[in-house]
């Protein structure tokens, strides 16, 4: 009998804990829009991407809720609904993120999820999102494969994929007459680094078939020690060294390479090199060609919307916004426009997921980084204009970006229906520059 009582105790304790947690599930409120925001809050990707992005997102959401953003984003919240954000840490790998995503959708009953920096997460989440019919906005990750290998109903990406970064850099090198007779690369050993190098090296080969590939280095991610790689790259005497390193890896690489005369001996290009500028400040080397994954930060276009955003962020945090906050705000703006468009169609009532997804498809909206058009992946994947520049010291001795060349979205992004890699291999057919 005792054993039976014991199992009853076990059962009831399990039940009790169930019920306790049941109580935490909130009821679906009216006039409120629950938004799960997933980005890196711990680990090596937090400092460069997650935290500045969420800083920007937090600030923008606050301003939206107060109705203080400029037109066309001046409506309070999302179409009058107050935005309640639930931030979640993105670290821990794609599998853990699938679970966190399910928790957000099923437990917290969020209306939408905005997030994901890591390409691995962006590859894993969409199939679950469609399965759970959860509206999902990918705001940052780079891999083109998300909408090239599959199509999803409820998933959108409001920023251009990474192919543009490397195509534009290749074009820039040629237009500016740089010596590209030999190239070398140092990129992290995972999808992002490998894709970036492939896009860049193939683009260069297409534009200048005689250039020779010297070293292709793929150090492991977060290794932080690049002494050997720097020696190997210097020994190769390549004219151009390409890198898509980011965050702490990029900072460490710069700190270790600079005293060895690396940036004076070879032309270095960083495909996503702007986001460490606020941190490194004047330790950033001169003469580096860099992209910001869009017209962001020091390469942002001269528009009223950008001037407002740049100043707002600068006033709040004391540093200029680099790509991460721009991209998160771009995602929020896209979502806001889609919701408000759907709301209008729905007679001013809160639209459902299907209505928002319909409105999101093919949406065009003006963001601080320029016009964003949801043109690829049948209206689910954005393209946007791009800019490439070169670092130099201004007259006060501060590092800044000069020699900026801007590229139309249709010049550096493939047309709908063509995979980025095929488009590069075919020599950019139909590019409208």
């Amino acid at each position, binding site marked *: 009998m005792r054993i039976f009582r014991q199992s009853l105790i076990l059962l009831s304790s399990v039940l009790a804990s169930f019920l306790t947690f049941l109580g935490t599930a909130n009821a679906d409120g009216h006039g409120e829009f629950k938004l799960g925001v997933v980005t890196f809050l*711990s*680990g*090596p*990707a*937090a*400092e460069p991407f997650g*935290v500045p992005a969420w800083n920007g997102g937090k600030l923008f959401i606050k301003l939206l809720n107060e109705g203080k953003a400029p037109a066309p984003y001046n409506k309070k919240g999302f179409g009058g609904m107050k935005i309640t954000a639930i931030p979640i840490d993105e670290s821990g790998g794609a599998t853990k993120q699938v679970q966190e995503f399910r928790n957000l959708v099923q437990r917290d009953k969020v209306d939408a999820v905005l997030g994901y920096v890591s390409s691995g997460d962006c590859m894993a989440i969409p199939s679950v999102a469609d399965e759970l019919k959860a509206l999902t906005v990918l705001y940052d990750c780079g891999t083109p494969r998300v909408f090239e290998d599959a199509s999803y109903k409820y998933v959108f990406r409001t920023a251009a994929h990474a192919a543009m970064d490397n195509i534009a850099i290749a074009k820039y090198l040629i237009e500016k007459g740089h010596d590209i007779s030999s190239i070398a690369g140092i990129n992290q*050993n995972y999808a992002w680094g490998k894709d970036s190098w492939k896009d860049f090296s193939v683009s260069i080969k297409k534009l200048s078939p005689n250039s020779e590939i010297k*070293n*292709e*280095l*793929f*150090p*492991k991610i*977060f*290794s*932080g*020690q690049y*002494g*050997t*790689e720097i*020696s*190997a790259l*210097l*020994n190769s005497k390549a004219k151009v060294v390409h890198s898509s390193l980011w965050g*702490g890896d990029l*900072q*460490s690489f710069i*700190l*270790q390479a600079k*005293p*060895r*005369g690396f940036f004076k001996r070879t032309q270095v290009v960083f495909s996503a090199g702007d986001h*460490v500028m606020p*941190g*490194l400040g004047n*330790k950033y080397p001169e003469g580096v060609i860099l992209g910001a994954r869009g017209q962001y930060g020091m390469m942002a276009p001269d528009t009223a919307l950008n001037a407002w955003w740049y100043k707002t962020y600068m006033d709040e945090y004391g540093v200029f916004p680099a790509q991460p906050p721009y991209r998160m705000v771009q995602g929020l703006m896209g979502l806001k426009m889609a919701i408000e468009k759907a709301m209008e169609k729905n007679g001013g009532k809160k639209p459902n997921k299907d209505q928002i997804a319909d409105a999101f498809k093919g949406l065009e909206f003006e963001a601080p980084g320029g016009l964003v058009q949801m043109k690829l992946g049948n209206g689910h994947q954005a393209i946007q204009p791009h800019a490439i520049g070169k670092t130099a010291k201004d007259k006060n001795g501060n590092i800044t970006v000069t020699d900026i060349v801007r590229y139309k979205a249709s010049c550096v992004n493939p047309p709908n229906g063509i995979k980025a890699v095929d488009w590069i291999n075919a020599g950019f057919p139909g590019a409208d520059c």
Partner: protein
Amino acid sequence: MIDEILTIILDGAIYASWLFIVALGLTFVFGVLKILNIAHGGIYALGAYSTATLAPIFYSLGMPEQFVVLTMLISALAVAIVITPIMERGILRRFYGQDEVLIVLVTYAIYLVLEDVQKLIWGMNSLYVSEPRELLGALEFGSLYYVGYDLALIGLAIFCGLTLWFVLNKTQSGKIVLAVINNPEISGCMGVNINKVYLAAFFVGAFLAALSGSFTAPLISVQVGISVAVVIESFAVVIIGGLGSIPGAVIGALIIGMARAACVHKLPEAEIFIMYFCMAGMLIFKPKGLFEGVQARKI
């Protein structure tokens, strides 16, 4: 050709020295306390952070630049002084005599806590202390420049290794530690205060971890997440060299350092894999590493 080989050796030696300094404390603590201290990586990060905090203060005092090395030592000491009582006395001591794996788990928990403690104390922004790296200038070697500071790391590694070896083998307190390593029970019966030895050994291990962080700080941007790689790499060194063995750590660091340098120069595709390859080979042919530290079990 000769140039390239020399470059490989030099690059390998620099990297191996760094690995050795990082792994030395880990293998020492393991040798004495039989604890694989996963929080080693966390202490390394604390060392880096405390140097990144104290060095700017030092520079603002306007003292001769060379003394920054002292600041780095002091910051490592400070970390060890703060962390040892908390970790060893406060937490780990409760678990001595219990399953060793339980203690590994506890150090893992401490590692998790330290990750967020860094965030709470220093925030999310990167810190930079590249100034000490300019201290020794640059040397031309072949057609390449090497930074004097990087080369000095080789000296630091040799110094740390030799000092620890000397203290262990040539001083009385060192011999007591060796006795405890060999057999804690009997040493205890002979009147050795084992708890004191453990505390001292843990302190040395924590100091070495923090020191490696302090001297790595000028090379990197100090930020959240720098401890992850350290845990794995120092573990690999220790596995290859033999758990708890100092000469083993030398060999382990040299094998990984040289193999990696050779790969980066001659076979870049294999670079990411080489460390695991060395480890796998060692596991299959000599599962307890090149230098077996202590007896697995006295049967």
